[in-house]
């Protein structure tokens, strides 16, 4: 029996096509994935992301625990409400999961992790917490989560919080505010401005309906994937996993590695750097006709690689992909599609952001 979010009936009412996603019954689209993609790039749409796992970390050792657990350094978070993207590594430097951590108060952090990795992540979080005397972990299955994204998403969301408008307006990018029962973060996974909002389960459907009335359109996980790919954002389990390090996954920028802080996986990362990183994650755009897909073989002058995420970019009108290929390769590569070699070009990511192509 698959799990259902509080918005299940709302999805059906909006003619959603439902699919299984990591054990959850989730909307893949509500008619047209491309239309939903365009809504987010030009107006405002919302995703039910209640399948994601929210964990609150509290206690006198919570800061020290997260500095041990995460490859990025939460000491960078100076103000309450600030957010940080980080990988959580195993001892070999492979990625257990990627996550966002919010600094919400003295000795209080909120971590949002993926749904497909929930069980192993929670086991890992608990195991590492055993080494600290005062760390409390609370899984927040009492909340639902909606991501409202797009150039008009902020304004449309603000219209639902008139009495706290100025407070919400002052929330900067990668910051969050708590307003009553609502936790409102200016984060997302689309390359557009907007909010990710946590709310109590019993208020979820009412809030969804208010957003609908404000002109925010429901968008499915299909559009979410093409949006994040255009924005050059990694997807856990396809672009990186426990067998790949952030260094060969385009995530070197998320590592805080140069000071004397110890964290899980750091010695493996330092050894990898010492030996020389062998692979890189790059963006490619297909020049020939066709569609790039996950796991297709990429042939370069320095050896073979593989597409980790490939799809069609509605904003560019072309196929785009993230690919893991040997370091040092630039310019053109070949991709093998159904026994034919197609030409593709390495480009700087993101492919598209804030409504526009970056290519």
């Amino acid at each position, binding site marked *: 029996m698959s799990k259902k979010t509080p918005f299940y009936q709302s999805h059906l009412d909006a003619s959603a*096509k439902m699919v299984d996603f990591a054990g959850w019954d989730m909307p*893949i*689209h509500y008619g*047209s*994935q*491309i*239309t939903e993609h365009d809504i987010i790039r030009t107006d405002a749409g919302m995703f039910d992301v209640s399948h994601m796992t929210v964990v609150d970390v509290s206690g006198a050792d919570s800061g020290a625990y997260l500095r041990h657990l995460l490859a990025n350094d939460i000491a960078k978070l100076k103000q309450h409400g600030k957010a940080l993207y980080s990988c959580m590594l195993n001892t070999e430097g492979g990625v257990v999961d990627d996550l966002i951590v919010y600094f919400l108060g003295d000795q209080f952090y909120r971590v949002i992790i993926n749904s497909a990795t929930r069980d192993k992540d929670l086991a890992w979080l608990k195991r590492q917490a055993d080494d600290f005397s005062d760390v409390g972990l609370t899984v927040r299955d009492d909340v639902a989560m909606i991501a409202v994204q797009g150039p008009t998403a902020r304004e449309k969301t603000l219209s639902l919080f008139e009495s706290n408008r100025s407070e919400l307006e002052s929330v900067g990018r990668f910051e969050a505010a708590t307003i009553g029962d609502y936790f409102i973060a200016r984060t997302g996974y689309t390359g557009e401005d907007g909010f990710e909002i946590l709310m109590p389960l019993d208020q979820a459907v009412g809030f969804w309906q208010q957003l609908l009335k404000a002109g925010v359109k429901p968008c499915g996980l*299909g559009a979410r994937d*093409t949006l994040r790919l255009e924005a050059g954002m990694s997807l856990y389990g396809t672009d990186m996993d426990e067998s790949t390090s952030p260094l060969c996954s385009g995530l070197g920028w998320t590592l805080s590695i140069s000071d004397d802080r110890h964290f899980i996986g750091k010695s493996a990362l330092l050894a990898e750097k010492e030996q020389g990183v062998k692979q890189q994650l790059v963006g490619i755009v297909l020049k020939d*006709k*066709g*569609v790039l*897909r996950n796991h297709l073989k990429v042939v370069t002058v320095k050896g073979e690689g593989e597409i980790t995420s490939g*799809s*069609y970019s*509605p904003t560019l009108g072309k*196929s785009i992909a993230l690919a893991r290929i040997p370091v040092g390769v630039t310019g053109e590569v070949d991709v093998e599609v*159904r026994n034919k070699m197609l030409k593709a070009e390495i480009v700087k990511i993101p492919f598209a952001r804030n409504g526009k192509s970056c290519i």
Partner: protein
Amino acid sequence: MSNVPSELKFLSSHEWLSVDGDIATIGVSDHAQELLGDLVFVELPEEGSTVLIGDTVAVIESVKAASDTYAPISGEVVEVNSELEDSPEKINDDPYGDGWMYKVKIDDPSEVADMLDASAYAEIIAEEE
């Protein structure tokens, strides 16, 4: 519920075929385009090539996946719908009209007779839906 025109023949793999004299026009069903979602690329057979019944002769790709389509009959490809190259969404918008894929000169009419009629195909997709 998908549209299944009564005058067409079908395969359980969701191709349709219509007959005009000795020429068959082939495409994919409304149910198939619904399952696939927004189409973004179509790879058609070459005009003048010969296809054999059951061959993978065309590939249609939606945002999420590539799907093979099969030749329902054998024969020479006499025309392809080249408009699909720039407008694959015609298959979504009008699968039995502007979204046709290719035309084949019929070698053996019994192959057409062996295909599913509309009511048999409608039963198959009713089970899927």
